[in-house]
């Protein structure tokens, strides 16, 4: 038997062997990418709770594969639902919604010129970023406009995503018009500030509110005017600090979303970077 196999191998030309090896590698690779759902069922004992919903999950994952949506993000949502003990039908609906968000994110990124083509596929992390922005309530058009503005300025993907993130954080504490959001985002991109500093706008806003400044004064006089005149966060801070303290306004509805059952102090900032490794 061994001899005959060896003989057959010898009879294969190098061309055929290379082709065969390539096809095998591609087959193995495609199998490992496409069977995330199966691996989850096989490896996680708690996944058995959702055995009745497997067909529906498979349909959603197949659709994701057809639309070239990152399935790993869908799997994470599945795991989150499982960890939180979500009923099967709720989980199915959530996955459908997640898939829709991811598809929208891919379209927005592609339209803004940040990949999404066969030759330059968009990274899963980038799709995830945009998905979170959409989930937070940022309108598609606003995200699309910010990404396009960044592409037009050659500011880069990182700056574009950071600007979207800054607007998301700002809108979490300050109800804002889309026009103002877009203006601030564009000014950030043109400001020359490092993208890692964009996120401080929400803190600046919080500081201003704590000193009793009105929403309009903060958004237009402090943030927009400072950015427009080429200033940065330090000038915004100086303007706020130099403003006489008035009676603080009641917190915005968005700020009231923060649960109150676990009070804390500003020193206990969670999710804070403590050192580089």
């Amino acid at each position: 038997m061994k001899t005959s196999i060896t003989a057959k191998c010898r009879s294969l030309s190098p061309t055929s062997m290379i082709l065969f090896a390539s096809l095998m590698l591609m087959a193995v690779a495609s199998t490992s990418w496409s069977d995330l759902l199966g691996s989850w069922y096989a490896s996680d004992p708690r996944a058995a709770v959702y055995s009745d919903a497997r067909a529906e999950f498979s349909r959603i994952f197949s659709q994701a594969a057809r639309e070239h949506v990152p399935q790993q993000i869908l799997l994470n949502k599945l795991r989150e639902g499982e960890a939180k003990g979500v009923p099967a039908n709720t989980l199915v609906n959530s996955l459908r919604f997640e898939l829709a968000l991811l598809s929208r994110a891919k379209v927005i990124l592609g339209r803004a010129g940040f990949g999404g083509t066969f030759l330059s596929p968009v990274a899963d992390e980038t799709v995830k970023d945009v998905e979170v922005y959409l989930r937070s309530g940022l309108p598609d058009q606003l995200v699309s406009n910010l990404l396009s503005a960044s592409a037009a300025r050659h500011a880069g993907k990182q700056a574009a995503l950071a600007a979207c993130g800054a607007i998301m954080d700002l809108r979490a504490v300050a109800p804002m018009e889309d026009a103002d959001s877009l203006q601030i985002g564009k000014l950030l991109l043109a400001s020359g500030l490092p993208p890692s500093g964009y996120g401080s706008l929400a803190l600046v806003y919080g500081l201003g509110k704590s000193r009793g400044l009105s929403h309009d004064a903060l958004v237009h006089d402090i943030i927009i005017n400072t950015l427009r005149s080429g200033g940065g966060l330090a000038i915004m801070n100086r303007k706020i600090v130099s403003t006489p303290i008035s009676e603080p306004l009641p917190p915005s509805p968005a700020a009231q979303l923060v649960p109150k059952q676990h009070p804390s102090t500003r020193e206990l900032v969670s999710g804070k970077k403590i050192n580089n490794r």
Partner: protein
Amino acid sequence: MNEICQRVDAAIREWEHGDIPGTQNLFFIINHSRTCARCGRSYGALLPLLRRDAGEPSGLAPADQTCSTDFTNSVMRRATRAKVLRFSGSTMQTAKWALPLAGCLALLLGLGGLILQAHMHSTAERVMVSFRFEAPSASQVSLAGDFNGWRVGELILKQGQSGVWEIAVPLHTGAIYTYDFLIDGQQWIPDPHSETQVDDGFGGLASVLRL
């Protein structure tokens, strides 16, 4: 269509069948096609060929002088040497090494892409992120998020002073993470200190961390 156009049609039909009209007739057809809109539309594309056959310089070599017999024979000798591969009835002419080379290139490009993607992720800065949660009455606080595949019980916070629970987790920069705290293995609570919280799609909230 007038009589002249009919004559032109007939002459063109003859010409297409290999009967080359006399030079005078060819020039007649050419000149008429230049002035008659109908014939110009129909035969405009043929004008260079007609001019060639009429002996007018047109950029095209006369048909019988396109290439020498020696050159044709040389080309045909080379053509017969090329291997012919058959794929389900269709015929494709190719060199012996072209297909395996294309296969290897495709494989290398695919592997290169995967390696590049892994490299890009590994070169993202890795930082230690401290998560803190104040829950003096809790007996256990754990953390789960998409950074650990939402595996419960993997990241247990340590209780410090004044009921503050804490854990440090290494995470890559340039990414967005969603996470929540699990109190006593029962209650999921978003981080009160996170800058943003989003709807988790299950009726609760998920904390957002941008690094």
